[in-house]
């Protein structure tokens, strides 16, 4: 176990190098966020009532602010590119020779990376939320907030395991970036980056809830805003946990198949 603490430590130091880069990224990221908020304000201004599919303007604004927060805490940054790169360029050799579990190793680096990113990005994001505080709602009660935190944790794991599995495709194909972008596109729309999934026609939303995508982002935000409640909430948490375990096992399986194909190219 101790060796993985070292990995986390190294991960922290390595990502600290990119702190300015992270700061730029989080500040630039606020511009499209601002634009989306303006867009919704214009939509609400053109309507008679303060209601779109059960969202008030404040609820809608909070949705996008929370998406930014959860994304900051859980999004896979460059881990998938790095894993694919290590496979392609043969750098995986050193891990195969050491008594270290690659998935755990990668998970530690992912955690360290997210920690640094959050520390750097939290400043600009909090200032932004403060400016928008009129439109920022708090969770209905402490229990809801607790479940939100639990769900965010599972979201991070799900994000990681999905990206990990995807990156392992590099064992079979030379260029995985297109596949990563295709997966990202689905995540972007079916995960709730663009709009809250419960403004979709109910049938469509119901079907989506069985795919892994909503649990990569929308679900914890839905809990926070009190949009997911009662039985739906427990059922959702169960499905989320199932997807986390499912992708963990799939990642392990794909790894064991992939390593057999691995040719240690370039050494």
């Amino acid at each position: 176990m101790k060796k993985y603490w070292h990995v986390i430590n190294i991960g922290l130091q390595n990502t600290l190098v990119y702190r300015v880069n992270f700061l730029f990224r989080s500040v630039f990221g606020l511009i499209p966020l601002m634009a989306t908020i303006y867009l919704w304000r214009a939509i609400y201004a053109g309507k008679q009532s303060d209601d779109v599919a059960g969202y008030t303007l404040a609820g809608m604004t909070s949705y996008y602010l929370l998406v930014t927060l959860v994304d900051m805490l859980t999004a896979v940054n460059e881990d998938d590119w790095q894993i694919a790169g290590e496979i392609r360029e043969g750098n995986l050799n050193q891990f195969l020779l050491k008594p270290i579990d690659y998935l755990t190793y990668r998970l530690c680096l992912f955690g360290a990376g997210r920690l640094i990113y959050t520390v750097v990005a939290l400043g600009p994001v909090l200032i932004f939320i403060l400016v928008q505080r009129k439109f920022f709602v708090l969770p209905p009660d402490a229990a809801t907030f607790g479940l939100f935190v639990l769900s965010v944790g599972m979201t991070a794991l799900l994000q990681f395991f999905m990206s990990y599995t995807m990156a392992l495709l590099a064992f079979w194909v030379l260029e995985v970036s297109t596949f990563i972008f295709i997966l990202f596109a689905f995540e972007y729309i079916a995960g709730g980056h663009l709009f809250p999934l419960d403004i979709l026609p109910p049938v469509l939303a119901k079907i989506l809830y069985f795919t892994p995508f909503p649990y990569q982002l929308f679900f914890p935000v839905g809990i926070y805003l009190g949009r997911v409640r009662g039985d739906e909430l427990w059922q959702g948490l169960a499905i989320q946990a199932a997807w986390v375990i499912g992708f963990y096992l799939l990642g392990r399986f794909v790894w064991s198949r992939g390593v057999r194909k691995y040719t240690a190219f370039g050494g």
Partner: protein
Amino acid sequence: MKVESPKQALENVVDQRLTDTNAVSSSSALRRYFSIYTTLWRNSIVREMSFKMNFILWIFVELLWFALQLAFMVVIYQHTNRIATWTKWEVVMLLGASHLIQQIFSAIFLTNIVQLSEFIRTGKLDFMLLLPVNTRFLISFRQVDLGGFVNAASAIAVMIYAGRQLHLSPSAAQVMGFVLLAASSVLVHYSLMLIVASTSFWTVRAQGIVWGYYNLFNIARLPDAAFRGFFKVFFTLVLPMLLVANVPVKLLAQKLSSPLEMLLLLCLSLVCFAVSEGVWRFSLRRYTSASS
């Protein structure tokens, strides 16, 4: 022959390259640059065709993202009839136009500009300074990304469909105007992105900033009337993102509040280009190569 220090030699080369620019104006030089560009095109086609599968997959990725933007607007218009003054099909047309402009920009310039910081970091820019062509021409046009043109076609198809839904029958003058305005929009993106990429002469890792600029394309596809205050002024006059796709579409959809909007876009595109030329020349003099 006088012995130069490496630094002097580099400065002389940069000076020469910068004065070469003047030669572009004569017609024989134009013909020469045209033939160089034809060769660059041929090289790009050969390169793309050696990775056919990848070429097709990238087109698919871009199509998917375009479809996603359209889906977003379709979902929004399930819940409202207008965004400020914009109706559904007008916004679809706007998405089409901004995608068209973005794809043409990507096809001609994007890869080249993103690579600039890499050339500076590794010192490969040396080789380009030594070639007897205008260096800005070379770093701007080195590669063509053919997939961009395929995706531009899909954008045009969406625009035509939206135009039909709006019962538009644009005159030849309107279409010409659209092409001219779209071209100046591409010029805006190109100039601004070159300015951003020129920071590579100062910081080693400018690629992040270049991709940061790419974020701004997200604003260009939103209807201008939704924005207010400082945000609107900034993204109209300083970084004209709210003009680049909006104005050409407003011309086609007859939504222009005054012809001055077109004039503003045309003027700003020329201003952006002039500023980028100034920044480029100023930055290039800072170039110290990598290994010396």
